[in-house]
């Protein structure tokens, strides 16, 4: 059994021959209590992994939905310390769901890279997605991640990564995050024109599960590529859905169980 929660979960899914369902939500939107309630509701509803977005003032990899969510969350007082506290509280309250921080590198630098990694391990953050940290710039943080299993760095690949894929996958942990289009989060209905070839290529090369994110709203969106991916990540659409339902945990739960259910019958 793997000691990292993400890797342990993915092994279970593989044994059950199930695809993973992963959501993204911006921490502190509309407040941290709601965020925690939504995470717990998702765990109960069968979501496999959650990405918790730590808001940053200049989210260059995000489209309008997550930009606006981040902006509102910062205005509401969310910061990295409160995000760590929320994870600690969730763990103390028995939440065993794998949790990933999605954040920008400046937040890590400002905290101090070594202290940041240490705090992730202590708090129970299982993985990190840092969209402005390509493999060329990962040496600094990897030095502190090495030799432990609690917190892992998730690698991203894009439709134009091509010859870079083998190098990116070398030593990659957890899963590989395939972005479905060029550019930013939340452009629904506009997968890259080479999406099928691209995903098949990554799948063929990857020793770890392959997840697709960016622009997914419902399980049927991934039907065309179901043989090349091991799961789906929903971000901007999930935030829109939460907004439409006044951030009711029940709405999140219903969406998650439906998606997971529909994915099993693709």
């Amino acid at each position, binding site marked *: 059994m793997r000691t990292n929660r993400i890797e342990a979960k993915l092994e279970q899914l593989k044994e059950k021959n199930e695809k993973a369902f992963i959501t993204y939500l911006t921490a502190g939107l509309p407040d941290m209590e709601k965020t925690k309630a939504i995470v717990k509701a998702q765990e109960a509803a069968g979501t496999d992994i959650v990405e918790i977005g730590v808001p940053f003032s*200049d989210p*260059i990899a995000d489209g309008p939905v997550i930009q606006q969510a981040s902006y509102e969350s910062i205005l509401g007082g969310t910061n990295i310390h409160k995000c760590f506290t929320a994870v600690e509280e969730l763990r103390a309250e028995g939440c065993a769901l794998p949790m990933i921080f999605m954040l920008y590198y400046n937040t890590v*630098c400002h*905290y101090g890279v070594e202290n940041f990694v240490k705090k992730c391990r202590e708090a129970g953050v299982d993985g990190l997605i840092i969209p402005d940290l390509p493999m060329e710039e990962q040496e600094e943080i990897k030095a502190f991640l090495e030799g432990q299993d609690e917190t892992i760095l998730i690698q991203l*690949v894009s439709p134009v990564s091509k010859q870079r894929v083998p190098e990116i996958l070398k030593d990659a942990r957890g899963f590989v995050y395939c972005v479905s*289009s*060029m550019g930013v989060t939340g452009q629904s209905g506009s997968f890259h024109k080479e999406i099928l070839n691209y995903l098949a290529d990554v799948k063929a090369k990857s020793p770890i599960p392959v997840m697709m994110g960016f622009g997914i709203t419902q399980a049927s969106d991934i039907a065309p590529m179901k043989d090349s991916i091991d799961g789906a990540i929903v971000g901007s659409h999930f935030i829109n859905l939460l907004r439409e339902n006044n951030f009711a945990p029940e709405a999140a739960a219903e969406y998650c169980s439906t998606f997971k259910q529909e994915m099993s019958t693709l």
Partner: protein
Amino acid sequence: MSNEKAYYGQFGGQYVSESLMNTLAEVDAAFEEAIHDPEFLKQYHYYLKQYVGRETPLYYAERLSEKYGTRIYLKREDLNHTGAHKINNVIGQILLAKRMGKTKVIAETGAGQHGVATATGAALFNMDCTVYMGAEDIERQKLNVMRMEMLGATVVPVHSGSNTLKDATNEAIRTWAKTAEDTFYIIGSAVGPYPYPKMVKEFQSCISREAKRQFAEEVGGLPDVVMACVGGGSNSIGMFADFIEEKSVRLIGVEAAGLGIETGKHASAMALGKPGVLHGMKSYLLQDDDGNVELAHSISAGLDYPGVGPEHAYLKDSGRAEYVSITDVEAMDALMELCKLEGIIPAIESAHAMAYAFKLAEKMTPEQSIIVCLSGRGDKDVNTIADYLAGKGYLN
């Protein structure tokens, strides 16, 4: 460090999404090839001479020198076509874009000078041009918005974050990540992911190459001090470039102190910033206690930027260059002085460098010399100047 060539000491790098890494590699390869190709350089210098109007004069400012008791020379980048140094870099990058087979260019702009220069170059080389500009800057710089539109560019207002240059840059980077296959991003300042800081320096280094030769011919030897204003740092890195190895020359970069460093309303990344990551680079950056980027403040839209180019951060840490700051009031006083004593209306950006030159002159002798980069002309700022003067009752 695995990405060593992208760094200036601990600063620089390529902090962008994976989608852009191959694009950056392509730009880097094309750039290195171009600047070693005599044909490319010939073309670049042809347009600098015949279209931009280089070389620009190194003007001995007689009345200022007399008043301040030291020899003050102005490198007249304000006399370039489009009114500022920005066009030097645009010509270089747009020739590179054409060479790479791109048909569209995008740019960010703050004061609008880089946007105007990019729109100009795009018209000249028949390329489709989109300029991202903060909604607040569009209000402040209406004249330049009109110029860009006349030149055929589409100006896209950016309504996110602070609605200024940093947000316009975010939006340009996002768009570029989506469209890099046919679009070249022309960055106007010495910022961004590698190789942009290197490219901008290369294409702005004509400023110091000329100034050094002009000074040697007209005066003899080297100046004692070379000075320029610093927002992101493009005119200053161009002004410093050929003097960096001349250790006897003091290099001084002048940042905007806005209402005063102590008020928190300033744009002095070097004075109070700490190393951080923004717009694809690691450099000094104004940030709050949570690591969010803090809004810069300056009366000058062109200096209103919370970061600074990575080579400047390195020049500061290595001690090779000094960085100081000048308030809005000091800059406006210097601007009026230049108008009245020399008949030159400078950009408010450039007036920051003038203001520090006047301060420093007090400690210099009549035989010593300062070159100040007069990076742009002030026509674009006339409304801001008028508002400021009305508030101060200057013209009464």
